[in-house]
Structure formats: structure tokens, C-alpha cells
């Protein structure tokens, strides 16, 4: 298989592998090397339509998201609570940056 020598893999590198018993799949060594993956590395499988996308860096994102959720949960804040104050935050940022502009339509 022709591999890209760039640090980032392109989505053009497509190959076929077989799923073994118990759902195991063998990822080619070159791909593992380029993605800095080794035995025991965690990856995320994202279900997309009829396909699966395997992403190696998602542990970091999931850790961040989980900690944000847990921190806000300590004060009983839900997603709806956080989204509900966005207009207030946008208004504050606007005032700080463009306080001199008056809203003649409001």
C-alpha cells in the first residue's frame, strides 16, 4: 500500500482489513506508527452513517469535556443552563468591544 510520508495522514489512504473473531481488527503497522499508536493506546470509534471513523486523539477531548461537565455539575448546572446565558455573554462582549455603537432598533 502506498503511504503518505507527510506527518498527517490524508483520508486518501484507504485499505481493506478483515474483522476477526470478537470484533478485533488489525491496523497496519505503518498507520499505527504515523498515528503514534501502540498496544494499549486508546482510540475513539465514531459511528457515521454506514461507517466508523477511528480517531486517536479523542481521549484528550473526552477528558476535557468530562471535566467541564463534572465541574459545572458541582453547582447543578446543565447544558440548558449554560446555553441559556449565551445571549447575556454575547451582549457583554459586544458592550466591551463596541460600547460606542448604539442599537437604534431596540
Amino acid at each position, binding site marked *: 500500500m502506498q503511504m503518505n510520508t507527510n506527518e498527517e495522514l490524508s483520508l486518501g489512504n484507504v485499505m481493506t482489513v478483515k474483522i476477526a473473531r470478537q470484533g478485533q481488527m488489525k491496523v497496519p503497522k505503518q498507520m499505527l506508527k504515523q498515528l503514534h499508536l501502540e498496544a494499549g493506546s486508546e482510540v475513539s470509534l465514531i459511528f457515521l452513517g454506514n461507517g466508523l471513523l477511528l480517531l486517536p486523539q479523542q481521549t484528550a477531548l473526552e477528558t476535557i469535556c468530562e471535566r467541564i461537565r463534572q*465541574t459545572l455539575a458541582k453547582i447543578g*448546572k446543565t447544558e440548558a443552563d449554560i446555553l441559556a446565558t449565551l445571549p*447575556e455573554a454575547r451582549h457583554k462582549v*459586544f458592550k466591551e468591544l463596541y460600547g460606542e455603537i448604539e442599537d437604534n432598533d431596540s
Partner: protein
Amino acid sequence: MIHRNRLRVFLDSNVILAGFLSVWGLDKAILSLCAARIIQLVLAEVVRLEIEKNLLIHSETLSRADSDLLLSDYDRFLQLAHPEIIPPPSVSEVQRHRGMIRHLPDVPVRTGLLRKPRCYLRRLLNQIGLSHTIRNISQML
């Protein structure tokens, strides 16, 4: 480093926050693709500030340590996604585009988007479907 051939997506604050807080969904999927740098996140500076401001509104009742943790986690996400930042428009630009949208505080965000016409909006991604978008990315690379 900004990769010009990568699909670029302009996300508003509600998408990013919903991506942080929801367990799964389209917002989370887009955030995952941005964090993996498959999609280039394009972020207006006003949106970046607005998310920070919104987190600060809620962190008033948090301990100092938790408040710092919240903001540093947001910063870690930005480091992970490495967004392309659109600087805030000038006062004259905001005034020029005032008629574009009814709600005045939205004008700087929409003006930022006008500067990056080759970006997809999250709303558009929702309409065309994420799997279709992935196929588009494959074709672009």
C-alpha cells in the same frame, strides 16, 4: 499551521458549548473532528471571548480552583483544535453590516463569517449530514 485543503467549519458558541456538555450528538461529532484536526475549526475572536465570558458567568458560584480548572479546560480544547481565529471586526465594519441582522450583538459574529466565505456553517452541516461532509472531505484531500 493552517491546512488550506482541510474542510473549514465556522462554529458559533452554542455548538462548541453543546459539544462540551453533551454526551453525544452532531455538535460533539463536529468537535471531535475539530480536535482531531480532520476539520479546521474557524473561530471568531468574539465567539472565543463569548464562550469564556459565559463560563465566567457560571463560575461565579464555583470555588476559585474549579473556576480556574474550567477556564484552563477551555484553553486546552483551543490548543487541541488549534482554531483559525478571525479577529474582531472594526466599529466601522460592524456599523456597515448593521442592516444584515436584527440583533445588534450578532453583527460582529456574522461579519466575521463574511470574511471567511469558504467556511461551512454548523447549520449547513446539519442540513447536508455529517457523513456526506466526511465524503466531501475525502474528495478534497
